[in-house]
Each structure stands twice: as structure tokens, then as C-alpha cells.
């Protein structure tokens, strides 16, 4: 009986070590919730510009050549950039705290691999979306964000807690659905980056963070 318990313990040890060393498991549920809230605030700020209640351009005298100059002259771009940075910082903040509390190093092999595998699809997506913007295909930008982000999350599933794949899958489904309803992109964007993040964050908090405190 003692031998059996010893073996079980050893196997649990092995499992924990394999997981700790290969996956980034400190991703906090709060990170999802805070990123979702940032996205909802961003969508709310963007709303009057997207639907034409306010002028798109910051400097209305500037020329309308479609390049990086135009992008930098748009309110929407700065709202989007601000939302992205705020979401990233708040997500990082909670995850940093969690890894501190659990004594897991935040910057190791696992974190590096996660960053590379999430970053690559996002970078490709950003280049592609900029091209869409240059060609004036604005209606495809919100679906594009959802699709590339979904692919990045599915890729992330191998390097962090696996549930993130389902979030990725939902983003892709939403992205495809919004392809059929161009013009309502902001609503889909708000659901995908706001509501889904919050739902995912609550689920993960309930599953991991809450029990780990007891």
C-alpha cells in the first residue's frame, strides 16, 4: 500500500514538472477580465467615429493619401492603439502577480515560446490588416482582427493552459460570422474582444485562481 502511494506521488510529481517546465501556466483569469473591460471601453470610445457622428481625422487639413500618415491622423487608430496597450498592460499586471504568488518564474522557456507563438500570427495579421486599410477595405478590418487573433490563441494552446484554444475557436467563428455582416464590425469586435475575454476570464478564474487560493 505504501509502495502504491509512493508511485502515485512520483507520477504526480512528474506530471507537475512536465507541465511547469513546458507550459506557461501563470496566465491569470483576471487578465482576461481586465483585457475584456479595456476592449469594451475602447469600443465605446470608437463608436461615434465608426458610425460617423464625429470626424475621423485629427487634423482635417492634412492630405488624404492612404499611407502610414493617414493612419496616424485617425482618431480610431489611436483609440485602437491605446486599447491594445491598456489591455496588454492590465493582462500582464495580473499574470505577473499570479506568477509571483506561485513562485513560478515569469520569464522562462515557456513564456518565451508562448510570446513567439502568439506574436507571430499577430504580426502577420497586423501587416495584412494594414494592407487592407491602404486599399480602403475598412469593413474587413474588424473580422480580420478576430480571425488572426483566434488563430494566435489556437496556436497558444500548446504553450499555456489548453482552454485558450476554445477562446480562439470562438473568436474565429465570430470573425467568420462578421464577414457576412460587414458594417457591423465594431459590434462583433466588442463581443469578441470584450465579452468573450470577460467570459473566458471568469471561467478560468473559477477553475484555477479560486481553488488555488484555498
Amino acid at each position, binding site marked *: 500500500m505504501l*509502495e*502504491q502511494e509512493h*508511485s502515485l506521488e*512520483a*507520477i504526480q510529481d512528474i506530471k507537475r*514538472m*512536465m507541465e511547469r517546465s*513546458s507550459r506557461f501556466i501563470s496566465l491569470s483569469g483576471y487578465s482576461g477580465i481586465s483585457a475584456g473591460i479595456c476592449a469594451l471601453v475602447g469600443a465605446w470610445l470608437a463608436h461615434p467615429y465608426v458610425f460617423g457622428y464625429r470626424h475621423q481625422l485629427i487634423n482635417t487639413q492634412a492630405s488624404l493619401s492612404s499611407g502610414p500618415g493617414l493612419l496616424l491622423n485617425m482618431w480610431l487608430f489611436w483609440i485602437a492603439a491605446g486599447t491594445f496597450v491598456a489591455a496588454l498592460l492590465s493582462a500582464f499586471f495580473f499574470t505577473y502577480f499570479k506568477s509571483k504568488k506561485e513562485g513560478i518564474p515569469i520569464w*522562462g522557456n515557456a513564456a518565451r515560446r508562448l510570446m513567439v507563438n502568439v506574436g507571430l500570427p499577430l504580426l502577420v495579421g497586423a501587416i495584412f490588416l494594414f494592407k487592407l486599410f491602404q486599399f480602403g477595405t475598412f469593413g474587413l478590418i474588424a473580422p480580420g482582427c478576430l480571425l488572426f487573433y483566434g488563430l494566435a490563441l489556437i496556436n497558444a494552446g500548446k504553450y499555456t493552459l489548453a482552454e485558450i484554444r476554445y477562446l480562439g475557436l470562438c473568436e474565429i467563428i465570430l470573425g467568420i460570422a462578421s464577414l457576412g455582416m460587414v458594417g457591423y464590425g465594431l459590434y462583433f469586435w466588442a463581443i469578441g474582444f470584450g465579452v468573450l475575454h470577460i467570459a473566458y476570464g471568469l471561467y478560468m478564474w473559477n477553475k484555477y485562481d479560486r481553488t488555488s487560493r484555498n
Partner: protein
Amino acid sequence: MENIIDQLNKSFDSRVRLGIMSALMVNSEVNFNELKELLQITDGNLASHLKALEENNFLKVQKGFVGRKSNTTYTITKVGEKAFRSHLSALEKMIRATK
């Protein structure tokens, strides 16, 4: 019962060694500091366990530098992988036997 216990590899008796091997099974290479943080043990303790595993030919050591800091990385060998796998199935048998 006696038989199964014999199949358990003596080199993996310690939790530290089992931990090192587990980490090496799922990572192409792991460096000294990562192992130290993972297992939460002292340099000397980790070094002696690594030495023992190296002497058994279970892992390969590569000494290198990152900038000016020395960076020693460890990789599992074919022999080590095989030994770890049979240790795992011995553990499994042990649990089954007492069921």
C-alpha cells in the same frame, strides 16, 4: 511485487532527479538556472544530482556562454529517455498491482 520494485530505476529514487528528467523529457534543452527555479533547490544540490545523471549517461551537458555569463544546458540522451519510460511503466504497474 518484489519483481516490480526491481524494475524501478534506482537512479530516479530522488524527487530531484525525477524532476530533472521530467523537465528534460518535454523540453529540447533546459539550462541550469531554469532547473534551479523549477525545483527550488540550491546550486550544490542540483549540481550533484545532475552529475549523477550525467554519469549514468542519462543526460548530455553543453557548456556555453551568453554574453559573459556561463550558460550550461542539459539535453536528455536516448539512454535517459528509455530509462525514464521504463521507470514510468514500472510505476504504473506498481499502482495496478495493488488495485
